[in-house]
């Protein structure tokens, strides 16, 4: 893929994340849910409700976050790899594998979320 395209993806995911992450973090503010502390905002009820209502957003968030993060790390690793072609190849492959693996876990989290007992 062209370097410019990758950069564009990086910037687009960045913009997405600024919106999504602020929502995601803001959702953990205890006062919004009328509870005492942080762990309470993560009670099964609240989480289940959140996932039920906003699962597309959460999927989108995890895609953006994983791509942005892994790609950012890849950039740094490539600098370190320098002109060693085999290392560069390994870094690229591992990055793709890491993205896929993390996304699979994230999707499993949402798809496999158990009903509230």
């Amino acid at each position: 893929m062209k370097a410019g395209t990758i950069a564009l993806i990086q910037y687009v995911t960045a913009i997405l994340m600024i919106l999504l992450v602020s929502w995601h973090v803001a959702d953990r503010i205890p006062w919004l849910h009328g509870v005492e502390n942080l762990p309470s905002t993560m009670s099964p009820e609240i989480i289940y409700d959140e996932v039920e209502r906003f699962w597309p957003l959460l999927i989108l968030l995890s895609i953006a976050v994983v791509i942005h993060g892994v790609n950012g790390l890849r950039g740094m690793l490539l600098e370190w790899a320098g002109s060693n072609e085999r290392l560069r190849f390994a870094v690229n492959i591992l990055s793709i594998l890491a993205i896929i693996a993390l996304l699979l876990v994230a999707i499993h989290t949402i798809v496999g979320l158990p009903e509230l007992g």
Partner: protein
Amino acid sequence: MERGKFRFASNRLGVMASFYPWIIDIKGNPERVAFTLHRLTGVILVGFIALHIVSTNTPARAGWEAWVEEVQRLSGVNLVSILFFIAMGALVFHSLNGIRLLLVELLALGIGRPEKPKPPYIPPSLKGYQRTLIYVVFILSLVIWALMGYVIFLM
């Protein structure tokens, strides 16, 4: 046409230059500090995200009881909550500085207009409003981080 008998030395600073800004004299260059912090927080966040994705997988993997147990580990001051707190700090700085970088890198804003040099020779990109934004980012991050600390540790 060089002969092999002379050895010439590399003088590359290497990866240290990215993570230790004071390896060169950076007077008048807070961008360099922001750059380093952005990288550092980026690395921290990749680790956090990986862990976060795996740990939020708990309900799907092991059921809600395990989840409740896991969440409880965040209350009070302990290793997990301190690490979480650091990750949140990284997140705040990375996002705020990210907004500034989006302006600068994607839209080329905040870096002034090209101009002819005149004393005292400050390059436009170092006197554009991105410079002000750096200080805003630093201060705002600290404030939000402190609030998060209150939420994590004191509530």
